[in-house]
């Protein structure tokens, strides 16, 4: 004969489990995911914030997440409600979400974004690129003022390798005898400044060794250990300085300047845009490297880094 107490205990446990999963299903999934600090959803302090929360996205790249967090906290300080959707992925993954209006604010990199929409673009200066971008972005999206800070792909070699082969620019790579391997994210393969572009502009052949850490520690280690000869490391990465790497110059402008440029949807009104541009105005190249350094060397979270920096700049 079954013990009624045990049965009810089991029923209770089952109900508890179902409730738990039921509760779980609604919260983190609907609210998008957060980096740290403020939980998803409300962070506004009342005031002039719009009724609809502004959705701020970021790439699956820690530096981009810091910039997103800067915008997010600055907006929250002005009373806006912000929803964070971080670590989405690379351009091909998040742009459809931006274009559909699911994401309102996305920190982007001007040159690459322009080439993504218009592979034949001829603009080479930051102002020209920005103007071209404004024309080429789809309906409902506009670029805000670019920051001075850039974070672009760059071909790097170790100092030793540069000295051994007298390398200062990408054109010099032609004189290197050995087969050249470049460590980079896998999408580098199809980027305009990847192996194909390098071949066309400088006549240099390279093969890509894909390491999915966005020019991070494993890529740097591969370069320093000599497993690869070149590495695609973003210019705002502190390890270029720390590991004494040499960034090869690009006289043919294969790699366009990548100024940090927020792409916003129509849901972002002039006031909100002004807040974001206020942050961008203070973001110099040095500042960005400093922010990245805090993340990688001091292992601080993007929320903490953003809070400190905004306070220091008088923006929060």
């Amino acid at each position, binding site marked *: 004969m079954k013990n009624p107490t*045990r049965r009810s205990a*089991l029923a209770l446990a089952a109900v508890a489990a179902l409730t738990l999963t039921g509760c779980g299903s609604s919260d983190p*999934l609907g609210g998008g995911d957060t980096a*740290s600090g403020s939980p998803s959803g409300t962070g506004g302090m009342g005031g002039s914030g719009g009724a609809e929360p502004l959705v701020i996205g970021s790439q*699956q790249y820690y530096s981009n997440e810091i910039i997103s967090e800067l915008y997010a906290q600055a907006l929250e300080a002005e009373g806006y409600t912000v929803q964070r959707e971080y670590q989405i992925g690379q351009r091909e993954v998040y742009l459809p979400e931006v274009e559909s209006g699911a994401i309102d604010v996305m920190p982007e990199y001007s040159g690459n974004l322009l080439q993504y929409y218009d592979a034949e673009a001829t603009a080479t200066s930051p102002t020209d690129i920005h103007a071209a971008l404004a024309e080429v972005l789809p309906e409902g999206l506009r670029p805000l003022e670019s920051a001075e800070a850039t974070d672009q792909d760059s071909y790097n070699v170790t100092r030793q390798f540069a000295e051994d082969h007298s390398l200062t620019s990408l054109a010099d790579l032609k004189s290197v005898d050995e087969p050249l391997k470049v460590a980079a994210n896998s999408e580098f393969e199809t980027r305009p400044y990847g192996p194909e572009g390098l071949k066309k502009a400088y006549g240099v052949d390279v093969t890509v060794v894909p390491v999915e850490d966005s020019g991070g520690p494993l890529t740097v280690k591969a370069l320093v250990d000599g497993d690869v000869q070149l590495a695609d490391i973003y210019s705002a990465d502190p390890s270029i300085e720390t590991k004494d790497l040499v960034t090869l110059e690009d006289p043919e402008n294969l790699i366009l300047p990548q100024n940090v440029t927020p792409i916003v949807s129509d849901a972002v009104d002039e006031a909100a845009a002004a807040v974001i541009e206020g942050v961008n105005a203070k973001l110099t190249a040095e500042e960005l490297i400093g922010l990245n350094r805090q993340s990688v060397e001091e292992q601080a979270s993007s929320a903490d880094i953003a809070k400190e920096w905004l306070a220091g700049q008088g923006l929060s």
Partner: protein
Amino acid sequence: MNWVLDNLPLIADRTWAHLATSLPAILAALLISVPLGWVAHRYRALNGPVLTGAGLMYAIPSLPLFIVLPALIGTGVRDVVNVVVALTLYGVALLVRSVADGLDGVPPEARSAAVALGYPPLRRFLTVDLPLAGPVVLSGLRVVAVSTVSLCTVGAVLGIPSLGMLFTDGFQRGILAEILTGIVLTVVLALVLDRLLVVLGRLAMPWARKTAEVGA
């Protein structure tokens, strides 16, 4: 570990997201496997196909499944429904065999006695077959729980939130503590779930322990 202390909210978020995807999948796997396993047990002709199908299902690699499934069920790759469905499929693939084996192991005398007492088929299934098959089903469920929790992390490379994001982020920034935290938490979560199931099993099936003791 300073990193851990500084990032407790992030860790909590990731753990929550992880549970929110794995727990429903485990539950769904159980709810689907029981009737499916019963079919395989009851209709001998279907036994082969169902179990072979389950075996093949398990052979399908996880990352590709996360990628192929959206095309079939019409969600996005990053959609949580996608992950839960995929994890459920793996859970069912593992559990169906346990259910079928468990039901096969029910002593025919017990069944005959129930029939003799006049139990209608559904009551017989719920109060005789299932409880007696319980221990075998439970051991299958424990394996499903552990492997689901572990498998859930793979989705992080596709941008799906879980403890796996501690691996991708730690990897990008070179923070070993972050990766270790992710590993430890995943293992702990899996083992806690495992223990929980054992305890629930003892509550639900007190006779199982006694039978084991007698047989030992």
